[in-house]
């Protein structure tokens, strides 16, 4: 296959669900998807670059995917894979000098990369909301919980009803004794409770899309389970879509509908979760799954050799090639496109046919 002929964009164009090009909010999902299940978010050929002293780091290199209304979607990958950067680029929260250099982010039909700052603020405040790994850095340390929630509720007129709404929100996210907790400051809360407060603040905005960047990574396992359960429950109750950024395949397996596996700034595989684990179709995904210590202790671990590439000095061809057991000459020839393996299952591997026999 002559890989260079086929850019990721052309692949996106082949997907009927993603052909909408109009900036008009309403008739975005012109094609195939069933009614009420059209893409809420479409990311198209997104690129993020960060100039450094060592050269330009290509943190996100042509990422395309879509998320439907009410769907749970995961971006999974290791550190430096570009998953967090993709997430931040969606809400345009890239720290300078890093910047989005190409691509579109269509949320309800509007391209967020082109939106004036004021309108973007509005979208960030209402349509889509992001929660971060460490709520301590996202909460204001010198304001009480009540103040921080009330700031979001300014359209609720009287301060009494704002207070009542804040209590209700805190109760909703499982904060015990919410009336008393209103006066608390972030440092007085545990990590799990801070994350619950972050979710209360997020919910106050009634988002249609919640982006959660490693929301449970800093938490202990029992608290992690509580927060994940809360996220999934809220997502279902409110019918919002959820993008979960995580490195934990177990969390992906248990909690999301569809998943994109990222490596070296690209999506290398995209599929329904059950399909991804049943028929992983990229050597990196296969390696990740085999790296998990299994119940079966007789099965030897098969770690992926080597380490991820330097995103400031990428050579030609597949960036996974140096660590890949299936590598062939064609892999180093040029860029590898994302190709359809099956319905709604995509892989960025030229030798995907050979993988099945493994």
């Amino acid at each position, binding site marked *: 296959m002559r890989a260079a002929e086929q850019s990721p964009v052309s692949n996106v164009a082949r997907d009927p669900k993603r052909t909408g090009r109009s900036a008009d909010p309403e008739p975005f999902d012109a094609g195939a998807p069933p009614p009420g299940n059209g893409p809420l978010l479409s990311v198209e050929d997104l690129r993020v670059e960060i100039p450094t002293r060592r050269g330009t780091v290509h943190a996100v290199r042509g990422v395309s995917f879509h998320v439907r209304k009410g769907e749970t979607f995961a971006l999974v990958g*290791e*550190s430096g894979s570009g998953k967090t950067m993709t997430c931040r680029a969606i809400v345009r929260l890239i720290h300078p000098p890093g910047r989005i250099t190409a691509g579109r982010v269509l949320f309800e039909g509007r391209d967020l990369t082109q939106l004036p700052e004021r309108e973007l603020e509005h979208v960030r405040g209402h349509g889509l909301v992001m929660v971060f790994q460490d709520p301590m850095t996202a909460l204001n340390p010198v304001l009480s919980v009540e103040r921080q929630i009330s700031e979001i509720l300014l359209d609720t007129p009287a301060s009494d009803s704002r207070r009542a709404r804040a209590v209700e929100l805190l109760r909703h996210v499982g904060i*015990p004794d919410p009336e008393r907790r209103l006066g608390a400051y972030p440092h007085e809360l*545990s990590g*799990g*409770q801070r994350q619950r407060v972050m979710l209360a603040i997020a919910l106050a905005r009634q988002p249609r899309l919640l982006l959660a960047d490693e929301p449970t990574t800093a938490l*202990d*396992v*029992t*608290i*992690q*389970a*509580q927060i*994940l*359960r809360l996220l*999934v429950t809220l997502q279902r109750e409110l019918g919002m879509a959820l993008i979960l950024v995580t*490195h*934990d*395949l*177990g*969390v992906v*397996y*248990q*909690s999301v509908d569809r998943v994109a596996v990222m490596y070296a700034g690209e999506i290398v595989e995209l599929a329904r979760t*059950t399909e991804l*684990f049943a028929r992983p179709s990229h050597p990196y995904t296969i*390696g*990740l*799954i*085999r*790296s*998990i*210590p*299994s*119940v079966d*202790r007789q099965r*030897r*671990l*098969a*770690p*992926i*050799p080597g*380490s991820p590439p330097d995103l400031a000095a990428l050579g030609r061809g597949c960036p996974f090639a140096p660590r890949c057991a299936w590598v062939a000459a064609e892999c180093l020839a040029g860029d590898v496109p994302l190709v359809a393996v099956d319905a709604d299952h995509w892989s960025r591997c030229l030798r995907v046919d050979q993988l099945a026999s493994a």
Partner: protein
Amino acid sequence: MGEPLPSAPPSPLLEVRDLVKHFPLPHTLLDVALRRSPEQVRAVDGVSFTLGRGRTLGLVGESGCGKSTLGRCVLRLHDADRGEVRFDGVDLMGLTETGLAPYRKRMQVVFQDPYASLNPRQRVDRTLHEVLQVHGIGTPADRRRRVDALLVQVGLSPADGRKYPGEFSGGQRQRVGIARALAVEPELLIADEPLSALDVSIQAQILQLLLDLRASLGLTMIFISHDLRVVRYLSDDVAVMYLGRIVERAPTAELFARPQHPYTMALLSAMPEVGGVRREPTPIEGEPPSAVRIPGGCRFHPRCPWKVERCSRESPDLDELEPGHFVACHVASERAIATAPRQGLPTA
């Protein structure tokens, strides 16, 4: 609480008895006003276990449960307040620093963050060489050869010795940390969350390295981790800690197949597993209390779905409910007694 004498190996390498380590908090004004001693963090609050030669004990629990403090007390990096740590029959707690020196060589530790435990301004071959020198091992030429061999043993090359810690990736640094620990040919290796700072694919590399080294060197290990998947994969026995105490201990397969303590069950159900039936996590309520104000009675009772009146009054002992399976829970003990006469009959 007796140990299972018939099944235990003749002389365990390590025996820990009723180990206690409290850390006093700084004096507060209130302490001064009330003329009381400052409050204490009861990090390790009465822990006993034995570890046979060549075996691996997985020590699991959430942050603040005292698992790392326990590891450090065994190594005498902390001096415990009370209790015994017998290494090969000798109580380490009674030894002076000089008396301890030969034992330091026989037990080593790998930390979570190898970057913090390596000198950033020293080439790693110098660091390894120094370890050998301090312990008086070999001639300078021997030591240089040994350093090269160590680097190869952990999957690096002798040329990597000329690098500084900052020039390595996280996984390679952990390899250096392991080489440093293995330099003196220890019998006991305590690995304190050695994988936590690493990415999944690199974790598997380091885990496989530890497994290979354990097999080739016959190491006895204490593997401290919050990750039950890893612990299940490499431990012979698992001890679950909660607020400074072991609440359950059993052979690995037994613990995962038939957990008896409600906290262990909660940990297992919170573990997001790859494979099997997709299920919603069923988390227990609440969060662990602070180790300064440990609840009276059973320390788990405020979060326990099974609690009965007795649990808030009386702290349960770690009872051997089945051979080799120890559980500290009133309800589990009563159940075990209630079902004992029916043993051998088919159960529902």
